[in-house]
C-alpha cells in the first residue's frame, strides 16, 4: 500500500541541491552577459536640469549609456498601473528612466551597460546629473499637511480615499455605554529578501525571441508586461523564475524599471544583458511597507462587546502607486480579525510622499490592521478591568456563525466572507500553551526577583488563496517519470515537495518519480503569481485536479488494455492493477506508451505503440475521438473567494528596569490553516513569519531624514534580526478545513508575521503599565516613554494602577 504523503512532514526534494551550493539564482546564470548599472537620484524630489554622460563614454568596456531620451516605443511611457481602483483617483506611476523629475532617492535616471559590473559602476561614477531640488514630503504628517505636493496631479497628496461602512458605526459609538479613542502609529519596514531583484535578458535575433530570467514572484506577469512594452508578440517572449532567494512581496511588484530596460537593451544591443540589484539599491529603489497613522473610536458595553467601531487611517504609499491600493484595502478589512463589531466604519487616505514606493510586504497591510484592532481590544479590557482574553472572547465570531459575511468588499473585489474557523478553540489552545491562567503567579515570581515581565496577546484572520486562478499540468512519460508544472513561482516555500506530495497521492506514484516545475512560462503559460498565501490553495488544488484527470485517463486506458472494468482498478506505486489480482497489472509508463500511437519507434518501449505492434480495432481511429495523445492532463482551480486562515499568538517579554532592553522570553503560536500538506513546511513558514514579525516589532524601520534621505540603507544600519534576537517559537495547530476547495487547505505563508507587532506591544504595555501606541519600539524609545510616564505625561494603565495601589 502506498503511504499517504499528504500531511506527511517529509524532507524537501529541493534541499540536496540547495545545501551543496547547486542552487541556480539569478546572478548564477548568464555567465559572460553584459552588466547593467544605474545612476539613481540622490535627491528625494528634484527637477532634472541636465545629464552629461560625456565623461563616461571613454571608460574602457562601456557598451551603451541610456537616458530617457534614448528610450523608444512604449518603453518611453510610464510603467503600468497594475491594479486600478475607482477610489484611486490620482494614480501615479514612474517612468523606467526619469525624464524630467525624480520623486524619491534611488529613482533610476541613467542606465549603463558594460563588460562587467565593475566597469559599469565606474562609468556611472563619471556621469554628471544636475538637479534643481524641490521640497521633499516625508512621512504621513507632512503628506497630510500638503504644504508641498509630490505630484501636481494629486491635490492634498491624496492618491486614494475610500470609505466602507456596515451599519451606522458613528451612531453606535455615540450611543454605546463606554467609548474610547486611540491614536496609533506603525513605521516602515520592508521585505528585504536575502537575494535582491535581478533580471537577465537573452535576445535571440535569429528567432526574434526574448528569454527573460527574473527574480520575480510572477513569471507570467513579467512576460506579459515586457511583451507589451517591447511590442513583441506574447509568443515571442518567455520568462523563467529560477531559484529565488526570497521574495516576501517585494518581487510580486512588476515590471520593475529594470525588468523592462534590461530586455530592451538586450534586443537593441543583440547581447545578453544582466542586472543584479545590490543591497543599497534594494533599500532605496525597490519597495517598503507598513507606515500608517491610525485613529480608532470604539463604543462598547459592560462585557467589552464592541457595538461600534470607527477607524480612520492615513497610509503612506510612497512616491508612486503602481500596485494600486491593495495594502490599505487589506488593512481596512482584515483589521476586523476574528471579531464581529455591531457596526463598522473604515475610512482611509492613501498619501504620496517622496520616498520609496509601498507595495505588499508579507502580511500586506494586515499587521497594521491587527495592530489597530488588538491595541483597541487591550484598551477596552483595561478600561473595564477585564481579562484581555475574555474581552476578545466576547467579540468572537463563533464556529456556528460560519460562513460569516462582514458585508465588506475584500482585496479581490469579492465579498469579505469567512469560510470557517474555530476562534474559541484557538484561544483555549493558546491559553493552555502560554499558561495564561497562571500568569499572575509567573509575574509575581519574576517581580520577587526584581524582574519586570509582561504577557501579550494578538489574534488575526488572514484571507488567503486569493484568485483569480492557477493551473496545473501533469504528464506521465513513458519511463514513468511524472512531470508537474504550475505557473506561479517559488521563493522557498518548498513547492517542489508539497506539490509532488499532492500529485503522488492523487496519481498513486512514488514521490521520487514526480518532478515539479514552477514559474516557467514555457511549461505553464497561464498563471498569476505567488502572493497572498495563495500557492498551496490555488496551485495545490490545480495540480490535484490535473492529477485526477491523468488518473482518470490512466484508468480508462488500463481498463481497455486489461479488459476489465475501471471500477476494479487501483493505482499503487505507479502501477495500475486489478484490486485483488495484482498480477493483472500495467505500469503507468506503459500506459503512457499506449496513449500515444506512434509511427516510429525510437526506443524499446516505443515499439509497443507502433502500427504493426499488435491487434487493433480498425473501426476506431488510433486516438479516440474524445481523447488526446499522451498520458497527461491539465486543469485550473479558480476559487469563488478567498479562504480565511487564522491564528493567535502570545508572548512573554522582559524589560530591563534600568536599560529598557526588551527580551522575548517565550513566543507561542496557535495556527489554523486548514488541512496541512506538509506540516514541517507549514511550521517553517510560521517560524519565519514570526522572525520577520519580531524584526518589525523591535528592530526594523526605515529611517528617513527630513530631506528624504534613507539614513540606514544597509545591513550595517537596518537592524534585521540575527539568530541572537529571534526567540524559540512554540507552536500548536488547529486544523479547520476550508469548505471552499477540494484539498480543504488554507494559505500559510504570511501568517507568522501578522500579529507580532500587536503581540509585542501588548506584552510591553503589560510589563510597563502604560499604553504603547507607536511601533516598532526600541529600548531608547521605551526609556523615553518611561521618563514621560514618570513625569505624568503618559497615563497609567488602569489595571496597573489597581495592582500597585
Amino acid at each position: 500500500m502506498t503511504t499517504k504523503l499528504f500531511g506527511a512532514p517529509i524532507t524537501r526534494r529541493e534541499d540536496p541541491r540547495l545545501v551543496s551550493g547547486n542552487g541556480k539564482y539569478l546572478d548564477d546564470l548568464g555567465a559572460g552577459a553584459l552588466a547593467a548599472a544605474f545612476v539613481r537620484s540622490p535627491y528625494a524630489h528634484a527637477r532634472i536640469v541636465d545629464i552629461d554622460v560625456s565623461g563616461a563614454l571613454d571608460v574602457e568596456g562601456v557598451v551603451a549609456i541610456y537616458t530617457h531620451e534614448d528610450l523608444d516605443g512604449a518603453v518611453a511611457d510610464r510603467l503600468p498601473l497594475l491594479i486600478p481602483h475607482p477610489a484611486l483617483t490620482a494614480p501615479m506611476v514612474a517612468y523606467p528612466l526619469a525624464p524630467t523629475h525624480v520623486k524619491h532617492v534611488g529613482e533610476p535616471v541613467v542606465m549603463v551597460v558594460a563588460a562587467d559590473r565593475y566597469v559599469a559602476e565606474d562609468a556611472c561614477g563619471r556621469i554628471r546629473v544636475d538637479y534643481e531640488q524641490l521640497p521633499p514630503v516625508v512621512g504621513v504628517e507632512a503628506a497630510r499637511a500638503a504644504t508641498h505636493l509630490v505630484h501636481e496631479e494629486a491635490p492634498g497628496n491624496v492618491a486614494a480615499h475610500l470609505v466602507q461602512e456596515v451599519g451606522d458605526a458613528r451612531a453606535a459609538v455615540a450611543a454605546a455605554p463606554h467609548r474610547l479613542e486611540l491614536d496609533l502609529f506603525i513605521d516602515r519596514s520592508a521585505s528585504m529578501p536575502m537575494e535582491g531583484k535581478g533580471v537577465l535578458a537573452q535576445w535571440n535575433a535569429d528567432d526574434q525571441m526574448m528569454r527573460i530570467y527574473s527574480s520575480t514572484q510572477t513569471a507570467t506577469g513579467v512576460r506579459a508586461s515586457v511583451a507589451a512594452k517591447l511590442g513583441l508578440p506574447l509568443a515571442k517572449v518567455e520568462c523563467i523564475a529560477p531559484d529565488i532567494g526570497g521574495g516576501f512581496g517585494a518581487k510580486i511588484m512588476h515590471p520593475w524599471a529594470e525588468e523592462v530596460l534590461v530586455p530592451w537593451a538586450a534586443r537593441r544591443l543583440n547581447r545578453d544583458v544582466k542586472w543584479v540589484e545590490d543591497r543599497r539599491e534594494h533599500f532605496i529603489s525597490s519597495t517598503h511597507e507598513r507606515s500608517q497613522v491610525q485613529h480608532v473610536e470604539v463604543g462598547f458595553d459592560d462585557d467589552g462587546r464592541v457595538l461600534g467601531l470607527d477607524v480612520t487611517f492615513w497610509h503612506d504609499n510612497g512616491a508612486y502607486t503602481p500596485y494600486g491600493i491593495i495594502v490599505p484595502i487589506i488593512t481596512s478589512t482584515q483589521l476586523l480579525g476574528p471579531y464581529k463589531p455591531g457596526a463598522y466604519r473604515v475610512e482611509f487616505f492613501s498619501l504620496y510622499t517622496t520616498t520609496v514606493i509601498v507595495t505588499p510586504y508579507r502580511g500586506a497591510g494586515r499587521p497594521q490592521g491587527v495592530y489597530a484592532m488588538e491595541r483597541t481590544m487591550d484598551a477596552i479590557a483595561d478600561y473595564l478591568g477585564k481579562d484581555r482574553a475574555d474581552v476578545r472572547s466576547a467579540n468572537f465570531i463563533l464556529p456556528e456563525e460560519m460562513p460569516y459575511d462582514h458585508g465588506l468588499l475584500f482585496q479581490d473585489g469579492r465579498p469579505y466572507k469567512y469560510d470557517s474557523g474555530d476562534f474559541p478553540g484557538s484561544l483555549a489552545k493558546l491559553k493552555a500553551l502560554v499558561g495564561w491562567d497562571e500568569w499572575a503567579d509567573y509575574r509575581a515570581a519574576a517581580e520577587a526577583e526584581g524582574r519586570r515581565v509582561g504577557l501579550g496577546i494578538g489574534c488575526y484572520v488572514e484571507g488567503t488563496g486569493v484568485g483569480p486562478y492557477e493551473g496545473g499540468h501533469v504528464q506521465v512519460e513513458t519511463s514513468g517519470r511524472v512531470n508537474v508544472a504550475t505557473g506561479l513561482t517559488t521563493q522557498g516555500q518548498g513547492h517542489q515537495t508539497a506539490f509532488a506530495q499532492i500529485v503522488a497521492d492523487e496519481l498513486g506514484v512514488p514521490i521520487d518519480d514526480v518532478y515539479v516545475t514552477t514559474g516557467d512560462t514555457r511549461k505553464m503559460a497561464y498563471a498569476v503569481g505567488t502572493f497572498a498565501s495563495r500557492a498551496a490553495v490555488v496551485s495545490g488544488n490545480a495540480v490535484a485536479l490535473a492529477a485526477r484527470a491523468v488518473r482518470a485517463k490512466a484508468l480508462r486506458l488500463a481498463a481497455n488494455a486489461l479488459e476489465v472494468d475501471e471500477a476494479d482498478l487501483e493505482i499503487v506505486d505507479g502501477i495500475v492493477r486489478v484490486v485483488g489480482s495484482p498480477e493483472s497489472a500495467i505500469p503507468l509508463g506503459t500506459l503512457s506508451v499506449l496513449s500515444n500511437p506512434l509511427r516510429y519507434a525510437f526506443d524499446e518501449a516505443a515499439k509497443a505503440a507502433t502500427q504493426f505492434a499488435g491487434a487493433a480495432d480498425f473501426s476506431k481511429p488510433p486516438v479516440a475521438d474524445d481523447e488526446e495523445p499522451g498520458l497527461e492532463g491539465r486543469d485550473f482551480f479558480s476559487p469563488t473567494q478567498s479562504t480565511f486562515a487564522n491564528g493567535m499568538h502570545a508572548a512573554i517579554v522582559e524589560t530591563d528596569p534600568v536599560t529598557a532592553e526588551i527580551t522575548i522570553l517565550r513566543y507561542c503560536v496557535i495556527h489554523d490553516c486548514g488541512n496541512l500538506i506538509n506540516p514541517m513546511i507549514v511550521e517553517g513558514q510560521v517560524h519565519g513569519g514570526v522572525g520577520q514579525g519580531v524584526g518589525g516589532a523591535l528592530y526594523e524601520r526605515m529611517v528617513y531624514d527630513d530631506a528624504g534621505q534613507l539614513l540606514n540603507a544597509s545591513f550595517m544600519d537596518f537592524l534585521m534580526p540575527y539568530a541572537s534576537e529571534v526567540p524559540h517559537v512554540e507552536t500548536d495547530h488547529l486544523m479547520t478545513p476550508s469548505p471552499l476547495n477540494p484539498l480543504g487547505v488554507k494559505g500559510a505563508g504570511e501568517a507568522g508575521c501578522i500579529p507580532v507587532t500587536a503581540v509585542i506591544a501588548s506584552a510591553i504595555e503589560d510589563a510597563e503599565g502604560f499604553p504603547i501606541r507607536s511601533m516598532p519600539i526600541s529600548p531608547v524609545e521605551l526609556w523615553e516613554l518611561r521618563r514621560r510616564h514618570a513625569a505624568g505625561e503618559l497615563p497609567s494603565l488602569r489595571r496597573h494602577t489597581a495592582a500597585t495601589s
Partner: protein
Amino acid sequence: MTRITVTVDGTRYTDDVEPRTLLVQYLRDRLGKVGTVVGCDTGNCGACTVHLDGRSVKSCQLLAVQTDGHEVTTIEGLANGATLHPMQEAFRDCHALQCGFCTPGMIMQAVDLVTENPHPTEAEVREGLEGNLCRCTGYHNIVKAVQQGAGAMSGGQS
C-alpha cells in the same frame, strides 16, 4: 593585474586578477563557483561565507589578492563526492532552509562554529551565527540543525 595562486576546493588555480577584485567575485566570475552568493556587500549578512585555511571568512570582505598562497573552501567543496557533509545533511533533515540563499554561508559558518565548539548549547549556536542573516526561517530550525550537525560531526555524541 596581479598574479595569484590559490587552492579552491582542493584545486590549485593561478590567475591574473585586478587588485580590486573581491574574493567572492573571483570565485563566482572567474572560477564559476556560483554556489557562494552575495547578499549585502557590507559584510553583515554572511551569505558569502567561505573558509580560508579552515576558518570562516566573508568573501565579500576580502580581496582575491589577499588569498594568494592560501586555501579556500566553498560550499561546493564541503561534501565528500555524492555524500553530503553532516552539517549539510542536518540542514536538510531539520528543514533549516527555505529559499536557500543564506544556506551556503550559514552552513560554512556552522561548520566553523562546531569546529571551535564541538558541543554548542542553543545559546552558543545563536551567538555563533550572529553575523549570518536568514530572512526565511526565523532561525528556529537552523539552530536545531547546527546542534544536530554538531552531534553528527563528533560521531553522534552531541
